[in-house]
């Protein structure tokens, strides 16, 4: 234990941990409190949400862990001590244990402290899934620190550390290039299964979905292989030992890749507990998700008023439900007959909830113009339904489109108008 204490006190390990914590936590607080993430789900809404959010901070931690590990890994060579140390009677793996151990304690400590900052604020929903997600995050930190140290020892130049850090960043970005990332420079660079080998995964950032357990277990297998390879590489001295060191990672990848799912729907799955619907006992039925149970009284009045307004339409909806669609699935919304959905953000933040429900489901499209056109169609439908003289609520600067739709609607005979309005209200990205 004494060498470990010396390492912790005298080496750069403590500073590495502090830097990882400060940079990632600072960056995270700016990100999560910024206007980009004004959603109804706090990052500490539930234990699962918390663990997923903390893991998304790996985007900053992993490149730095790689670079700082490389910087630390070349220490013996930098001090031209490696030949002298090699004459010690202690085996290489035991000599490597202390410097690596010190680095891992502080780096993992940074991750755990980050998690604790959220854990003391967490509201509810203790599910054990958070543990698995966090284990994957911790293993990722361990793997990248050790990999950095191994490469730093192999290529003991000063430039190794920054080059590795930036390469790590580039690697993470390339691994984000799954086939569904429209408009992304690396789109299609990797399949879903390959991209899951990268432990950094941005999401799901809501409280109604989570990462499939299957994926987390396979990621654990792969990361354990990677850790073994990195450690063996760190202590290897002969070219043969270096080649043999690659085996665990190859085996881990060979097990994980064929078994990892190759589509998004199997990676992000609904959280059965938080997304279960809680409904009113009396008709017309109004429902919210379990995690938003407290907002049911707020929804009931406006929802029923909205249903009265919507009764003018053919096949009018008879109940209102909160949309419990997993994160980033807005485009593949499945509609249930007789149900109109309300967005969780509208449920909690919207001022005129009735008009929001009357307008129909908010659409989120990759193509901004399609989204603005859909908004215009929804605004026209709302105006017609609530009897406002002009389209009331048009976002995105397409009042021209709204006026066109309004004029064409007015030119229809009165009997054909309700059907057309129902159509406008259902406008999605594609149409």
């Amino acid at each position: 234990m004494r060498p470990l204490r010396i390492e912790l006190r005298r080496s750069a390990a403590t500073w590495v941990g502090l830097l990882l914590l400060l940079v990632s936590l600072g960056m995270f607080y700016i990100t999560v409190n910024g206007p980009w993430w004004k959603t109804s789900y706090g990052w500490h809404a539930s234990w699962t949400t918390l663990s997923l959010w903390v893991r998304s901070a790996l985007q900053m931690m992993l490149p730095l862990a790689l670079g700082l590990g490389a910087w630390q890994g070349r220490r013996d060579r930098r001090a031209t001590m490696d030949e002298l140390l090699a004459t010690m009677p202690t085996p290489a793996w035991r000599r490597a244990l202390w410097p690596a151990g010190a680095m891992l304690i502080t780096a993992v400590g940074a991750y755990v402290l980050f998690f604790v900052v959220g854990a003391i604020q967490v509201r509810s929903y203790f599910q054990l899934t958070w543990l698995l997600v966090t284990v994957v995050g911790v293993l990722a930190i361990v793997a990248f620190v050790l990999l950095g140290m191994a490469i730093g020892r192999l290529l003991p130049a000063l430039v190794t550390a920054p080059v590795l850090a930036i390469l790590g960043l580039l690697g993470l970005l390339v691994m984000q290039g799954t086939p569904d990332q429209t408009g992304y420079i690396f789109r299609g660079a990797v399949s879903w299964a390959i991209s899951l080998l990268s432990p950094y995964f941005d999401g799901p950032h809501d409280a109604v979905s989570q990462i499939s357990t299957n994926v987390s277990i396979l990621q654990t297998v792969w990361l354990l292989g990677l850790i073994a390879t990195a450690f063996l590489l760190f202590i290897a001295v002969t070219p043969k030992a270096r080649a043999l060191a690659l085996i665990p990672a190859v085996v881990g990848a060979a097990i994980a890749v064929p078994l990892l799912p190759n589509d998004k729907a199997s990676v992000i799955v609904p959280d059965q507990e938080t997304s279960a619907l809680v409904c009113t006992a009396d008709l017309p039925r109004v429902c919210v998700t379990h995690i938003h149970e407290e907002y049911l009284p707020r929804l009931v009045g406006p929802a029923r008023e909205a249903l009265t307004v919507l009764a003018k339409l053919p096949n009018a909806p008879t109940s209102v439900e909160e949309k419990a669609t997993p994160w980033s699935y807005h485009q593949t919304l499945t509609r249930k007959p007789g149900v109109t959905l309300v967005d969780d953000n509208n449920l909690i933040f919207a001022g005129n909830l009735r008009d929001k429900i009357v307008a129909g489901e908010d659409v989120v499209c990759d193509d901004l113009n399609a989204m603005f056109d859909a908004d215009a169609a929804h605004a026209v439908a709302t105006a017609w339904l609530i009897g406002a003289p002009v389209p009331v609520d048009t976002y995105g600067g397409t009042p021209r489109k709204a006026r066109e739709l309004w004029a064409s609607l007015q030119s229809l005979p009165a009997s054909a108008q309700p059907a057309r309005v129902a159509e406008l209200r259902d406008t999605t990205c594609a149409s």
Partner: protein
Amino acid sequence: MRVLTLYARSRAVPQMVVGVVLVSLGLSLLGTELWLIAMAVGVGVSMASTGLGGQDVELDRTGAVPWPLWRAIHIVAISALMVAAFSWSGLEVTIRAAVGLTGLAAIGTALLGRQLAWLSPVVWVLITVWLPGTNDVVKWLIRPPETTASTVTAVVLGLVGLVCYTLRGPARV
């Protein structure tokens, strides 16, 4: 001339130039996005920053050489090399990135020494890539070239770095 050769050799300038050229060739294949330029200049500056101090800082200081002048020229030379190596998509953004990131590396050298000087440019590149939003100051590396606030940020970083490093030199670590 002889002093210049010895200086360049002691700061591993030839190896650094070769490295920067290789990085430039490699990354130029990937595309012309602004963040790619930022990343490329970030690597280049980090590589170059290892030459901002000698093997022995204390020993260097005993030399009868006008060090502030040499340091200032070294910083300007790094910026110029970055512009020459990485301007494959647009001159304005590369000049801005080169000036600002070299300044950051110079600040890093003055505070942490040449071995860890790469931390400041690399951390800023990481923030630039991952932070959402379009803040002109924080994301100065990847805002459109005509953005005044971004240009001002780069110039301020460049000047602060130049002054710090010229006056203080590499930190004694």
